[in-house]
């Protein structure tokens, strides 16, 4: 079972914009086993989308550059694959569901044809069979196949998101990257879509990376969670580890600032300060300027501490201290 299916090692990505270098991803390592779901949580600009795009190798050519690291998928380093072989990986082995369904669909193509396109790229089938398959996919995500020939503008947001999902799942990918698949949707629709993704994932035993900043979604969907801050994973662990025993001050802050459904007290525990400027990240731990427990050592090299099992945390504090922080944060 513990088969390493996806392994990202020390991935680094920078963007160049107006002569400034945005350090979007700064040494991220991820390990994902078959059939499991990893949640990537973090604030806007933390680098979540960038990681997913790097895995797909669809970062914008000019602006972005992968400056280091390896991505092993099923035993192949896909960063070293020649472009045409990479094309076969995309869509077939790895598929992605995009953040904003409103813009992820080509407005001038019928939704059916957009699904057909990915099918015909990877399955050697004739057009007729492909269209059949695309119709099946539409029905699978709960859209009648009669609507094959309609255009995206004729669909509501939730339906568009389902089309995007159908497109991603059309070739039974082994890895699904879902980039905030529900943020653009209403709560009730979001629930429908999340259910759908979960069902399909279970049905095909797909591995998934779910990107979101909604801790509720993570709680309901993921097996593992990686908390990302300024392009680094500051805490990683099983869902239970993170939700029940958060260790990193940032993670704790994050939970604290949620207007808890059950908590009676009025004031929220907010994290003071602002996310760092990605063009000028602070030395050492990027969180120290906002951290209530910051010490001088935070500006130096930060060790990765194992807390329990697969629960890791990047912080200068010792494990015991962290646990203490945790209990402090909860009270």
């Amino acid at each position, binding site marked *: 079972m513990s088969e390493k299916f996806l392994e990202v090692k020390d991935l680094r990505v920078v963007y160049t*914009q*107006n*002569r*400034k270098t945005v350090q979007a991803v700064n040494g991220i390592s991820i390990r994902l086993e078959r059939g499991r779901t990893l949640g990537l949580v973090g604030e806007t600009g933390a680098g979540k989308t960038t990681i997913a795009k790097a895995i797909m190798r669809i970062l914008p050519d000019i602006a972005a550059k992968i400056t280091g690291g390896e991505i092993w998928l099923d035993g192949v380093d896909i960063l070293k694959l020649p472009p045409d072989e990479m094309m076969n990986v995309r869509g077939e082995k790895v598929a992605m569901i995009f953040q904003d369904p409103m813009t992820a669909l080509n407005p001038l193509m019928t939704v059916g044809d957009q699904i057909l396109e990915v099918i015909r790229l990877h399955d050697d089938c004739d057009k007729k069979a492909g269209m059949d398959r695309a119709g099946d996919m539409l029905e699978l995500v709960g859209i009648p196949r009669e609507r094959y020939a309609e255009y995206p503008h004729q669909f509501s947001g939730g339906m568009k998101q389902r089309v995007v999902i159908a497109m991603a799942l059309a070739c039974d990918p082994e890895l699904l990257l879902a980039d905030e698949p529900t943020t653009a949707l209403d709560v009730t629709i979001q629930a429908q879509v999340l259910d759908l993704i979960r069902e399909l994932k279970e049905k095909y035993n797909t591995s998934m990376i779910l990107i979101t900043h909604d801790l509720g979604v993570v709680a309901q969907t993921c097996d593992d969670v990686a908390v990302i801050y300024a392009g680094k994973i500051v805490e990683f662990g099983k869902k239970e580890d993170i939700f029940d025993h958060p260790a990193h001050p940032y993670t704790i802050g994050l939970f604290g600032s949620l207007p808890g459904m059950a908590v009676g007290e009025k004031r929220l525990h907010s994290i003071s300060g602002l996310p760092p400027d990605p063009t000028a990240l602070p030395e050492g731990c990027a969180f120290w300027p906002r951290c209530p427990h910051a010490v001088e050592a935070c500006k130096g090299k930060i060790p990765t501490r194992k807390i329990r099992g697969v629960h890791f945390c990047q912080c200068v504090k010792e494990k015991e201290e962290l646990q203490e922080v945790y209990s402090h944060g909860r009270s």
Partner: protein
Amino acid sequence: MKKTEKTTYSLDFMRRLLKGWSSRLGFILLALIILLCLFGPFLSPYGVNDIDLQNMYTGPCMAHWFGCDAMGRDILTRLLYGGRYSLLLGLSSALLAAVLGIIFGVVAGYFGGKIEAFIMRFMDIWSALPGMLLCIMISAFMGAGFFATVIALTVGNIPGGVRMTRGQVLAERKKEYIEAAESINGSKMAIMFRHLLPNVVQPMIIITTMSIGSMITMAASLSYIGLGIQPPTPEWGAMLADGRVYIRNYPFLITFPGLAIALTVLALNLLGDGLRDALDPKLRD
């Protein structure tokens, strides 16, 4: 404190504007042309209308770098002098067109409804006649001369500005800060001119910069077909028109004025491109 902030902002703007080699080139070229046109005539040993029948059609030489025209006038001097007209013509008509375009556009876009429909239908009619044709007719109507040409060029170019501004206003009007201004009792005037205007002029600034160039070209075309500035004013287009008769024998008579126009317009366009890159929020960090 305020002052330094301001300067850093404009410094920052200049830095962004002059980032690329092309806009830098445009800037330098334009500055050079403007300086030359402002001060060049004082440096020249010849008067702009000094007729010298000994030197009719003298080709480029040491004494007359760009040669002399049919009446022995020094072409370089006339070019420098004429540059003032061309630049002034381009600038004033582009500005005038922009200002009118913005006013109508803002009014149409902000008020909407009947006012908008009226203005826009009027613009439809207006722009059913391509700009150059309208210019030709206005020139015919107003007679020749500097002022008439400015009016002709302006009139021909208003609809574009109105459309553009209105489009911007429509996009901008939806934004919440306009509602905010309304909710704090901002008057219509204040909303239109304090809030909307500064936010919609930016594309107009770019367009206007570029349109100074096209106005210069258009003015030259008008002069070329005999409807623009009258002789002996050394407007570049008029010089071209005068020189075209001699295209066979004295090509320098049309080469230099044409080059002057082309370079000026080029400079303006390069600068306009630079401006767009510097001002366009999409490309802004």
